[in-house]
């Protein structure tokens, strides 16, 4: 299908991928690690309570905490504070699963399809890691939703979706069809970049029309895969600054997530994902299907064993890696941190040193590059002074943290890091504000009640005092009467 009517992205960058890059689209499978680590934290960083006990045997797919399942069968051997792939560099409560090597699965047989998806613990594999069932439920609140499948690989160096489409095009299309049926929609819009020729060929060969899948090719401009601009270009719906796709009745899912949903509907829980492992120079990349909970260092060792370039890069820098792509990623010590649903890529080898920033020269290069039409230099000034009100006026919430502004800034200002900081500061302030409002109401209640009680007590005391006085008075009256009587009738 020809989609010349698709709007170009305003802003964004044509990122250069090394022309001689060697991307291995074979799907390797990592061996099952003897120990799997399951951090009990959800996407909003709330710590979850385990619902298993130490020494308990679990099957793959069995729930171990709300929204978290065992990725393989085995025994829960420990409950510890353990590192995890997150920029905070913190340790979080983690269950250790000693796998028994038998990989026995618990069947997912809930009647309602959404419950099945929930029980299978399907989470977005694109990056944010939201619960997929919740997303679909929300989008369906408005009646028949619109379905967008996002196969736009956001950054160079991440090729896990590309590999999936090349290797399993039919499974991908079937998964789209089962989602189309589940949602009761007529078709799916399947967005993919026009340079993924091999993946496109593989999909076209399977006749996507048969599956009611409408393939939309987009020019390679980073970040075409960001949700808000993608939806605007495909459906014409402009999201408000505080809206997500589901809020306007659009189900927008990453292509690998769609396959996870399909598997869940067939009864298979979501226990793995494809991870791209790429050298920092982006010259070499391999894709490995990995169980969640697999320690990153074990995965790296496996990657090094099948790709000599990665082995060399690992030798050059065996202590730190980048988790995520070259733009969105963060540095992390190479340790036993587990692979999670959001771990789409790992970069090995020495990272470029961070340049020292200088003052903003107000060249507005960042404004031109911003794909969502913000004024990054103004946002930056607000972020530096922690002026959240001003940051809001410059639409802090709209920023998708793509990193385009950083790349073009001649002053090397880490703009995106500042926006991450400002977003967190804003969230923190909002939480404090909500808590304060509630505490204030309860305190007003408390004070009002205590005052009323004190007043009631004072009134009751006064009444009692009056009564006592009266009693005293009447006692005096009686005494007087007796005295009078005595006087009248002197004893004989």
């Amino acid at each position, binding site marked *: 299908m020809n989609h010349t009517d698709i709007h170009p992205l305003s802003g964004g960058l044509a990122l250069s991928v090394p022309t001689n890059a060697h991307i291995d689209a074979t799907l390797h499978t990592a061996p099952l690690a003897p120990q799997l680590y399951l951090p009990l934290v959800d996407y909003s960083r709330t710590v979850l309570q385990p619902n298993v006990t130490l020494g308990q045997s679990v099957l793959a797919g069995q729930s171990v905490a709300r929204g978290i399942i065992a990725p393989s069968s085995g025994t829960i051997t420990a409950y510890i504070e353990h590192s995890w792939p997150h920029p905070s560099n913190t340790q979080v409560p983690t269950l250790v699963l000693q796998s028994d090597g038998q990989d026995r699965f618990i069947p997912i047989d809930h009647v309602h399809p959404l419950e099945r998806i929930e029980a299978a613990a399907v989470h977005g594999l694109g990056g944010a890691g939201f619960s997929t069932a919740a997303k679909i439920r929300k989008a369906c609140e408005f009646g028949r939703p619109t379905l967008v499948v996002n196969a736009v690989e956001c950054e160079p160096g991440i090729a896990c979706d590309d590999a999936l489409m090349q290797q399993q095009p039919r499974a991908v299309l079937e998964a789209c069809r089962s989602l189309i049926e589940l949602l009761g929609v007529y078709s799916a819009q399947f967005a993919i970049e026009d340079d993924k020729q091999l993946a496109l060929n593989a999909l076209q060969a399977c006749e996507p029309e048969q599956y009611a899948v409408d393939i939309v090719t987009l020019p390679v401009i980073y970040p075409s895969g960001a949700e808000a601009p993608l939806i605007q270009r495909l459906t014409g719906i402009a999201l408000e600054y505080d809206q997500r796709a589901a809020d306007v009745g659009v189900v927008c899912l990453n292509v690998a997530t769609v396959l996870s949903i399909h598997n869940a509907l067939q009864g298979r829980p979501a226990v793995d994902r494809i991870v791209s492992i790429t050298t920092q120079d982006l010259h070499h990349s391999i894709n490995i299907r990995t169980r969640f909970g697999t320690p990153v260092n074990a995965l790296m060792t496996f990657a090094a064993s099948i790709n000599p370039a990665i082995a060399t890069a690992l030798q050059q820098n065996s202590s730190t890696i980048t988790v995520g792509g070259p733009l969105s990623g963060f540095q992390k010590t190479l340790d036993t941190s587990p692979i999670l649903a959001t771990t789409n890529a790992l970069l090995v080898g020495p990272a470029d040193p961070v340049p020292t920033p200088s003052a903003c020269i107000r060249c507005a290069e960042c404004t031109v590059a911003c794909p969502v039409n913000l004024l990054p230099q103004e946002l930056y000034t607000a972020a530096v002074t922690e002026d959240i009100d001003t940051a809001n006026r410059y639409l802090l919430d709209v920023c998708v943290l793509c990193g385009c502004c950083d790349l073009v800034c001649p002053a090397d*200002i880490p703009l995106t890091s*500042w926006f991450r900081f400002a977003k967190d500061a804003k969230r923190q302030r909002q939480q404090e504000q909500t808590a304060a409002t509630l505490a204030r109401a309860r305190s007003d209640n*408390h004070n009002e009640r205590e005052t009323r009680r004190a007043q009631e007590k004072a009134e009751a005391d006064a009444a009692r005092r009056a009564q006592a006085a009266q009693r005293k008075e009447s006692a005096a009256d009686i005494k007087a009467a007796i005295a009078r009587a005595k006087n009248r009738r002197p004893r004989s």
Partner: protein
Amino acid sequence: MLWLALASLTVLCLAIGTAFAKLDRANNAEEILINSINDYLPQTQCAQCNYPGCRPYAEAIAKGEADVNQCPPGGEATIHALAKLLGRDALPLDTAYGERKAPQVALIDENVCIGCTLCIPACPVDAIVGSAKLMHTVIASDCTGCELCIAPCPVDCISLVPKQHEVSAWQHPAPGTVHRKES
């Protein structure tokens, strides 16, 4: 004669009315100021500012009796906001009133609690539940961590613990390499 009487009566009424309206407006203006100040206070109700709660402190600030730097839970953010609102200088937090601490909540050791109910009226935000001779407990989401329940407990079974795991409170730090100017 009658007209004169009526006219003077009207004038009198108007005068009294205006006087009352003025008084009312003055009251309203002060009320609005107190409320805006109170909006910036953290509502921990801990009385560390030496006033029996956030609103009394707001009243004292509005009357000009107190400085804006006496609230440890609010810290620098509250001081800056109040200074901006009132056009006063943003003084550093007066640590004589206490230091800013990480968010905390009270936890009752339920095996030790004797159910004396003394902690209940001490809690300014009604975050403790329990009844006579029965174990008491703190509703963690309602507790502001004000510490006022610690002293009344005769068996010392209330302690303060961090409100949340380190990871839930974590924020992306400000990029360190930039020299930050003060607002």
